[in-house]
């Protein structure tokens, strides 16, 4: 695939955690580029820094040092609220453990990012219907996460991640908590989204899951192997 445009660019990203008295380097100088429309999987053993890398790409965490360009813009210097609006509109995040609001219905979970984006009621309704239909859960819109299976919860989470139609979708072990059938469903949906032109970055430790992607980045001890 020709890299028409770089959408994510990391240069020498380091992340150091202070654990008690000593410093733990989760990422020790990661540099990588991801092109628009690419489907990349990030693999590596436990503790290799996959999730830390994803959290930094997803603007959920900030690097200790290094530069991160998202659509050519340096993210490092942005304020919390600017990052919030990036998370809201540029990035969709799917977590291993779904991270749905437990007290809210499927519909309401998908609605949250739309609310934070200031969409009016009519447009919210329209968009949620579209999204729930796309993940095949419109009939479950009044159900709470506890009344849904793992696969269904992850589909709701996926619908939420896509709420504001972000160009980039980040998935951290999206199938990690699912049975293989549900996992395949999710991968099918991700594949479809990629074909629509979305950039997808996915963390996994499962080769079969990684096989869905175009390119695999391998991490080892906080560095690209």
């Amino acid at each position, binding site marked *: 695939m020709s890299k028409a445009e770089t959408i994510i660019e990391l240069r020498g990203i380091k992340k150091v955690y202070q654990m008690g008295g000593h410093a733990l380097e989760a990422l020790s100088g990661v540099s990588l580029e991801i092109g628009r429309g690419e489907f990349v999987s990030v693999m590596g053993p436990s503790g290799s820094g996959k999730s830390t890398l994803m*959290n930094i790409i*997803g603007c*959920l*965490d*900030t690097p200790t040092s290094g530069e991160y360009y998202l659509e050519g813009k340096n993210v490092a210097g942005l304020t*919390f*609220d600017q990052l*919030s*609006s990036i*998370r*809201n*509109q540029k990035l969709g*995040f799917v*977590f291993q453990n779904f*991270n*749905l*609001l437990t*007290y*809210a219905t499927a519909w309401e979970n998908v*609605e*949250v*990012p739309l*609310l*934070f*984006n*200031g969409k*009016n*009621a009519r447009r919210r309704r329209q968009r949620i219907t579209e999204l729930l239909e796309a993940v095949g859960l419109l009939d479950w819109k009044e159900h709470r996460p506890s009344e849904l299976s793992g696969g269904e919860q992850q589909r709701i989470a996926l619908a*939420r991640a896509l*709420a*504001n139609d972000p160009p980039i979708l980040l998935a951290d072990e999206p199938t990690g908590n699912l049975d293989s059938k549900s996992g395949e469903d999710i991968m099918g949906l991700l594949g479809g989204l990629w074909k629509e032109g979305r950039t997808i970055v996915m963390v996994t430790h499962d080769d079969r899951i990684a096989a869905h992607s175009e390119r695999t980045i391998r991490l080892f001890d906080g560095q690209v192997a």
Partner: protein
Amino acid sequence: MNLTLPRFFLREFRKRRKKTALITFALFWGTLCVLILLAFGRGMSAQSRVAFSGLGENLIMISGGQSSIVHGGLAKGRLIRVYPNDIEDLKKRIPEIAVIAPESYNGWPVSARGKELNRTVHGTTPEFAGLRTQIPQPGGRFINADDEAEGRKVAFIGWKVAADFFGGEEAVGKEIIVNRVPFTVIGVLQKKIQNSMYQGPDADQVYLPFSAFSQIDSQPYLDRIHVQPRELGLSKLVEERIRTVLGRKYRFDPADRYALGIWNTIDNAREQEKIFKRIEIFLGVIGALTLFIGAVGVTNLMYAVVRERTQEIGIKMAVGARRRTIVLQFILETLFIFAKGTFWGFITAFNIVGLVRLIPLSEEGFGIGAYLLRPVFSMDIFFIFLGIVGTLVFLAGIFPATRASRLNPIEALRYE
């Protein structure tokens, strides 16, 4: 203003109200207790004023005494009396006096319808009504100037006297025999509460025009002179002037505290009011302490609730919530909880106070019930309360929320 987010927060709050039910209840209970406590305190103060006005408001009462200081060559121990002509003298010489009235009384048999009772019978002038809160029941009146001028044989009687003789029947127009002289009842005293008196409660008294009283009573001097100063602040001055004027007339030392018996109810009322103000302050302090304990509890609960929601905050941040959105949500939730708890506390306290006030008071004297059963609900107390509790609850909500909003989204998400 865009209400999308507030509406969303209200919806979330409603969904989760069970989680905050305890806080709401604590606020409800605190509001209820403090408001009721203060309403009773305020009621006691107010009732003490009412009870005192049962005798009369801003009243100075002068009676005779015995000199205790040698003065102008006269030995001490002389009896000093006040006489009917002192009324004119005092009025003329002390312009600070607004109203003045004489009073004499005697214990006599009073009879009607074949029933005879011993009652204290007073002779006085029309001014007495205003001085001593003698308000007639509808259909009757107090002694007037014509009664006094013509020496009419008319009587104004306490409601118990009326009940003793005539039961439930209309007493006005009926005849009573006072010391073997017939008098026509012209009015019955309206019921009132009274906590200070000298010849028993006004309910048991019989009042005659002074002129008519003098015809059947042989005592040349007065038992009392009632004086009301033009202003409350003048009471001490008027008291001193009375001593001076009467001291010159009856030749006693104005500094002689025993020459005249002076009962200054203004002083009494002030003393009593001070005591009740202190009780009110005391109850206020108890209320404030209760409030403080409650606020600590509410703060704690708020804190726990917000902590419990750290992960939720993380999720919201991950999908694009701004810091101020997070803080706004908690401020609004705090406001909802606060509004709900205090609103119902207020409504309940207001109704309890209203219901307690419906309990009838016994007219037998002025018992503890009269002080306790007339709580006064005051809005100023409520607003002060709202201000204090509002601030505390607001702080209790805002601190943990601000703290949570400062977390990295990932830290908040991982929070257990």
